[in-house]
């Protein structure tokens, strides 16, 4: 069955949100899980996207994505009422939710989207939730209201100072770690480099840190191994062993290189798509 987009809007610069029909996934999904979609049947690529929210009763899932390659750009051009041919999921091991006490949730850029269901579940489990959201600039800010509603404390930063505090997320993160008592657990989701530095920060304070990795994938069920990362020196598959791992054991440098394996092809494909798109007049 194909999956109808029932509503869609742009949240910020290059960032989009959509509510999509996927009743089975909406029923089964738990915080931390993701889906793999392909827009059409024969030639489309399969891309993983984290589930930002779901409504089991209405059979809807919510996705938030940023335009990076061709598929995310094409997805952004789909309109309400149009459909996505394939969505499979929910994939990955769900987040371990418990009453840890005080949790710090750090979301960088589009990483705020997968963080929201986790932070919401943590709050519901009785945790004190301290949230840090970081963005490049004000025009990329997303989900501030949603996080404000479930956080005991919310700190928003921007790289250029155009909104909130002018800082990288590591700065307030260190401050929260210095509090007494220090947070019991940190959850960090965002660009790989941000997760790397957040983990270096929390390591100094011995605050256990979960990260959610968004590597390249093909099947998402453990069959291809394209998503493998080094955890404590050993290869692990993000799709079945993860996507969440102990951030202090992840080899982020290698992961960053692997993430860039198809950068050139990705950019060329998007450029070709944008050029074609102008010709067929989708730009109205």
């Amino acid at each position: 069955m194909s999956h109808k987009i029932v509503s869609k809007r742009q949240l910020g610069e290059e960032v989009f949100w959509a509510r999509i029909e996927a009743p089975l996934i909406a029923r089964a999904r738990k915080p931390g899980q993701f889906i793999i979609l392909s827009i059409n049947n024969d030639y489309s690529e399969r891309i993983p996207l984290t589930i930002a929210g779901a409504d089991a009763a209405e059979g809807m899932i919510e996705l938030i994505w940023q335009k990076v390659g061709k598929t995310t750009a094409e997805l952004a051009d789909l309109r309400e009422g149009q459909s996505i041919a394939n969505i499979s999921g929910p994939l990955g091991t769900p987040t371990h939710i418990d009453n840890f006490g005080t949790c710090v949730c750090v979301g960088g850029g589009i990483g705020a989207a997968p963080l929201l269901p986790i932070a919401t579940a943590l709050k519901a489990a009785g945790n004190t939730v301290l949230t840090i959201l970081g963005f490049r600039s004000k025009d990329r800010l997303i989900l501030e209201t949603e996080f404000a509603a479930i956080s005991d404390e919310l700190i928003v930063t921007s790289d250029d100072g155009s909104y909130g505090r002018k800082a990288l997320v590591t700065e307030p993160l260190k401050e929260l770690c210095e509090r007494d008592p220090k947070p019991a657990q940190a959850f960090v989701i965002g660009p790989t480099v941000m997760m790397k530095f957040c983990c270096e920060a929390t390591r100094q304070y011995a605050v256990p840190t979960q990260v959610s990795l968004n590597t390249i994938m093909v099947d998402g069920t453990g069959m291809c191994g394209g998503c493998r990362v080094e955890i404590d020196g050993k290869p692990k598959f993000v799709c079945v062993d993860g996507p969440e791992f102990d951030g202090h054991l992840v080899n982020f440098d290698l992961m960053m290189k692997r993430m860039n394996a198809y950068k050139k092809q990705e950019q060329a494909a998007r450029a070709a798509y944008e050029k074609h798109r102008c010709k067929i007049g989708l730009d109205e």
Partner: protein
Amino acid sequence: MQLTRSTGAKSGWTNDRSDRCAQGGFSAHALLPFDARWTRGLRTHPTGSRTVRDEERQQQLQELLAKQAAGELKPKDRFAIAPQAMPEQDPSVRRCNVSEVALGYTKMQARLEAMRCLQCKTAPCVQGCPVQIRIRDFVTAIAQGNYPEALDIIKENSLLPAVCGRVCPQEVQCQAKCTVGLKFKDVEKAVSIGRLERFVADLDHGEGAVPSVAPATGKKVAIIGSGPGGIVAAADTRRAGHDVTVFEAFHKPGGVMVYGIPEFRLPKAIVEEEIETLRKMGVEIVTNFIVGRTRTVDQLMTEDGFDAVYIGVGAGLPSFMGIEGESLVGVYSANEYLTRANLMKAYEFGKGADTPIAASKRVAVVGGGNVAMDAARTAVRLGAEKVYLIYRRTEKEMPARVEEVHHAQQEGIEFHLLQSPKRVIGDENEHVKAVECLRYELGEPDDSGRRRPVAIEGSEFEIELDTVIIAIGNQANPLMRQTTPGLEFNKWGNIVVDENCKTSMEGVYAGGDIVLGAATVILAMGQGRIAAAGINTYLAGK
């Protein structure tokens, strides 16, 4: 045999590499319908030469048949018939397209090849077949020109003859037992049973009747996985009148036959036909459905009303060697490489397909099985200039089908035998630049009966590369284990079943790679059939 073809490319992924080809401008897609047409049943060959030869063959056949009718045909006459070579695309041409390599016998070739069969009373070939096809009888029917009967005989035991005729390792199964091969002390001179099976299966193209289905029983069967085992289990349970649903994790059904085995060895159109037959029988096929995640086995049985389940989810996790540098950019599992190239059509990246694959120049494939051959030959077709196959034993121990090994060699793949990578070396961007290998020698036989390779100390050397593909097998996928508490697994993570393929859970059966570890299409099919019989018996008594 050199084939000359006049088909021009309509849209060519090979155009930019046409300088490498004897005849440039082949296109995967431009050729497909054409190939499918004449390899799957068209009587005349596009080149005249084959027709001329067929006239000679016809004469030879008539003489043999006349002798047979007069009761004068002796085994020595049969031994005197030359083994019929499989017509193939020329290696220099096929390096640049993804169309099927082996083109199939003509009728005359098939009948002559079938005349080579001695029709042994004991039919040792049948014992060599994992599903006990009545081989002698179908070969006899082909010799007589009675093709529909030949196909009916095969279909008594095998539902997928067009597939098995192409991918079964006949040289270690039926053909290994063939008296003709034994007489010549050369298994390659055995009667080509697989090629004959393929021949009759291909004649069936488009005319195959949909198997009849018994009156509805009101019982529901879930088949998890749409590979060879799943297809057979679905067909057999549906024939018994049950309401059957096949669940497939990918967006396309067919399992390893669509993501793994390449087009040039098994055309996707054949698999699609088998799936279509299931649909015509009334089997529902649900894609993008991951049992264990979308719904669990428990949910299927307790909430969704399924009375029985067949688990045929395949192998899953690709094995890696555990050596330094295996996570570098440019190191692939064969599963990933083949999935990108086959299922996702990455060979047409930028020309329609959105899935990229490394633009490799120098590739090493590690392993000696069919998957290793498939990966190496795919790399050639994707434009690699140099493809090495690194295997730590000798050609004799290779688990790959002999035909695939020959084809790989013909296509210019360089075999590095008695060698194995010690580490993968990366450049400053963590991209593969070389592998360091060790040389090996063969020692005493190990558990598998093959002589154990022993590393020669201090024999390290480097091969410069940009891509490494690891094809050393798979481990069991943990998903079923993680999500199906009542199911018993062995220490390797494979599902434990009895002789009827029944698992530790009531109404749940399993087969194929998830039970056997690494198996073949025919073994998976055999288990699908056993499990279906078990399910049908179980449901009849419920």
